[in-house]
């Protein structure tokens, strides 16, 4: 298509591209994935667990995925994306250079159980996106260049949302949106649950990330955000919150695929297994 500038108007010379623009421009083809339907086929890595008693158990339950996580040893804390206790990846099949908008939604009716094990026993539950070579899902090791590296030899970028469950006696939770080798920190205020009868633990989180090819050919995760609906102080479930990240994350190769990742880890050691269950839906388009 050849573009001709005529005064302040840019005209396209190919007929099919010269119509007036309306918003939305049209259907943007992409991928819709229900992670539970993919039968937990992603890769699993245990990077911190050092004893046979601890770890994570992943179960498919209809359209939902349940993850149970235990950590009885004080060395099994999660400080970085790469030091979660267990994580899995799913290949979306979409390339970085397609400039996709990537969204992952996690919806739960039960939040994190068991309740009451708050404070030091808080569960870190993380979802997000990682870019890595096509066919490279078995090789992804978020620790291959150290815990604080934004990229490694097996992956080129990460962007993630950590949900920190059961942070207090009210069974509230908090959210952080981070990138690369950042620490698991920068959490929001409390997203309040209704823990008195009639209880309401229904939360929905939707993380959206924009991948962008710059004019100089660099590939980036640019702005991202996570919107949440939560029960709130009245338990009606009408509360919402938005947390954004404006830090660019460089991606080294436009041919790399966008993978979905889900991970669990623990803030500190505790004897009680923490479980989080819900439905994950992914749109990459």
């Amino acid at each position, binding site marked *: 298509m050849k573009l001709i500038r005529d005064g302040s108007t840019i005209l396209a010379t190919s007929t099919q591209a010269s119509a007036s623009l309306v918003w939305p421009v049209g259907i943007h083809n992409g991928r819709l994935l229900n992670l539970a339907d993919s039968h937990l086929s992603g890769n699993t890595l245990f990077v911190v667990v050092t004893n046979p008693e601890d770890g994570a158990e992943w179960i498919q339950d209809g359209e939902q995925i349940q993850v149970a996580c235990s950590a009885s040893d004080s060395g099994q804390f999660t400080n970085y994306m790469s030091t979660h206790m267990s994580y899995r990846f799913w290949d979306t099949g979409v390339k970085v250079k397609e400039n996709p908008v990537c969204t992952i939604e996690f919806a739960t009716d039960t939040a994190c159980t068991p309740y009451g094990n708050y404070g030091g026993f808080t569960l870190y539950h993380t979802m997000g996106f990682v870019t890595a070579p096509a066919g490279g899902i078995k090789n992804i090791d978020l620790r291959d260049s150290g815990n604080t590296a934004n990229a490694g030899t097996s992956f080129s970028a990460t962007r993630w949302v950590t949900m920190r469950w059961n942070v207090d006696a009210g069974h509230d939770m908090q959210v952080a949106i981070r990138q690369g080798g950042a620490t698991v*920190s*920068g959490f929001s*205020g409390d997203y309040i649950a209704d823990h008195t009868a009639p209880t309401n633990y229904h939360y929905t989180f939707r993380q959206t990330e924009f991948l962008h090819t710059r004019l100089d050919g660099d590939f980036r995760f640019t702005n991202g955000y996570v919107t949440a609906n939560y029960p709130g102080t009245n338990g009606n479930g009408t509360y*919402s919150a*938005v*947390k954004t990240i*404006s830090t660019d994350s460089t991606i080294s190769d436009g041919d790399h695929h966008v993978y979905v990742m889900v991970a669990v880890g623990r803030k500190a050691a505790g004897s009680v297994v923490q479980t989080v269950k819900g439905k994950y839906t992914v749109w990459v388009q």
Partner: protein
Amino acid sequence: MIVELKINFVKIFGIGSLQGSSGTLQRFLSQTDAGGGRIEIDGQEKTLSEAETMLSSYLSTDITDLVDYIGTETYSDPTLDDWFSLEIVLS
């Protein structure tokens, strides 16, 4: 050392050129005290006094050019305030 500050949208004032004064680290840190903000150093939450002790050698440094805006946090709940986050890498 990475310093992350969470500062109240409404209650911040008086940093750097906004009032024609320098944006010292001390001045940025003090803004977290207005409206219940937060200071994290290398991922660990610190009180204002703890942070001032840890960063004592930088307190009078003008860090205006080192500050990166990294995100926001907003709520529909009118009882909760809105926030923004800054990151400062000190070496």
